[in-house]
């Protein structure tokens, strides 16, 4: 005799189906809750992060920003061979000085031997990897000996840091001499 199946015989399957459906609904709900709204807007990432990334604070400005206020230095710095050197390299980032258009703190100024360290950071001949076309390098203290100045002299005693050849050129002019290998 064939066995008659009662509906209760399928109860375990039904239970499993209910559990799966409930778990699925919960999973969809949880996914909606935990995933950021803009996830997948443009791809597998949070679309609103593009906006966040664009609003990352800009702390370094350009030399032009500094020239807005520092007029006398602008005239010297812009005319000299150091015109490509960033103000912020020696003096620190703009944002430490001005925030929201307001003055917040004084910029550090390098003094004494710090200046020499800073000059030699680029101009030291002992580092041979520096291409001659890019930069004029000097050996220390041979440069001082060659120019017949006191060996204890600091760079900024002959070279104005914002335009290194300003005083040198003036001195040559006063003496009525031509500068050798002058670079424009």
């Amino acid at each position: 005799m064939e066995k008659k199946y009662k509906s209760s015989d399928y109860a375990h399957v039904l239970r499993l189906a209910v559990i799966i459906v409930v778990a699925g609904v919960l999973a969809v709900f949880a996914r909606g809750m935990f995933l950021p709204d803009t996830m997948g807007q443009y791809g597998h990432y949070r679309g609103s992060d593009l906006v966040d990334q664009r609003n990352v604070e800009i702390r370094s400005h350009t030399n032009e920003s500094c020239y807005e206020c520092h007029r006398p230095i602008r005239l010297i710095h812009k005319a000299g061979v150091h015109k490509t050197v960033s103000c912020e390299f020696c003096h620190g980032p703009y944002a430490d000085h001005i925030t929201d258009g307001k003055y917040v703190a004084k910029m550090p100024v390098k003094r004494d031997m710090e200046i020499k360290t800073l000059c030699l950071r680029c101009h030291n001949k002992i580092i041979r990897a520096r291409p001659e076309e890019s930069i004029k390098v000097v050996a220390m203290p041979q440069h001082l000996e060659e120019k017949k100045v006191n060996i204890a002299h600091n760079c900024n005693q002959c070279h104005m840091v914002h335009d290194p050849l300003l005083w040198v050129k003036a001195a040559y002019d006063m003496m009525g001499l031509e500068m050798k290998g002058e670079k424009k």
Partner: protein
Amino acid sequence: MIDIKKEIQKDRRAFIKNVLSGTIAGSLLMVIPAGAALDERLPEQLPGMRGDDSPFTEKKFAFVVDVTACIGCGSCCVADKNEYNVPDGNYRTWVERYVIDDHDEVFVDSPNGGLDGYTEPRKDIPYPVRDTFFVPKLCNMCEKPSCVQVCPVGATYKTEDGFILIDKDRCVGCGYCIQACPYSVRFLNPVSRTAEKCTWCYSRVRQGLLPACVNVCPVHARKFGDLNDKTSEVYKILREPHVISVLKPGMGNQPALHYLGLRREVV
């Protein structure tokens, strides 16, 4: 507490209205991005970027580093550290010094990532030096980035205009991307415990400024521009005959960072 209870009992409806409107206004303020505090008087270094609010630009940016011009001053590293307050010991960009002796042995060093500049010559080279030069390194912004592929949470992604960025809110700090990057440009920020790397200064670029390192380079060894613009310097360099190469071309990542005058010894 008693005051609040009194307030509620006085007019329940008005109280709920006030609380709700306050919450909505507060959350809206958090959603609306704060206006960028950029001085509009700043010169626009990348034309056509300001006022472009679309999520992706129509541009195709490329970075060119001229190895034959770099003097290893470390201006770029200083600018980068200033711009992003990069934690000590980690570098978004750094400058390597290569020394090759006449027995073809290659010596590479990068004291503090070039942040303090190069003050001392290498003294441990056994034979006369044949060639020596600086190689600045930064994110290669690959066409096929390995880091994006491995990220399990979708925290690192490639924008349609070619930037690879990291969503620091989604990053879980698993470090897969750090291992996957063939150029080792990624690091785990010890403070936020999330992955970080050079972004080619995405925020600056979107506001019409050059990346911080390009802006400060005194010898113009770093060049940045749009390849869709046929008058840009990078377009001219990459389309005209020059010695151009990318790092590890065999990896197949197709970097958008190109080197001008790179020696074959560089990895």
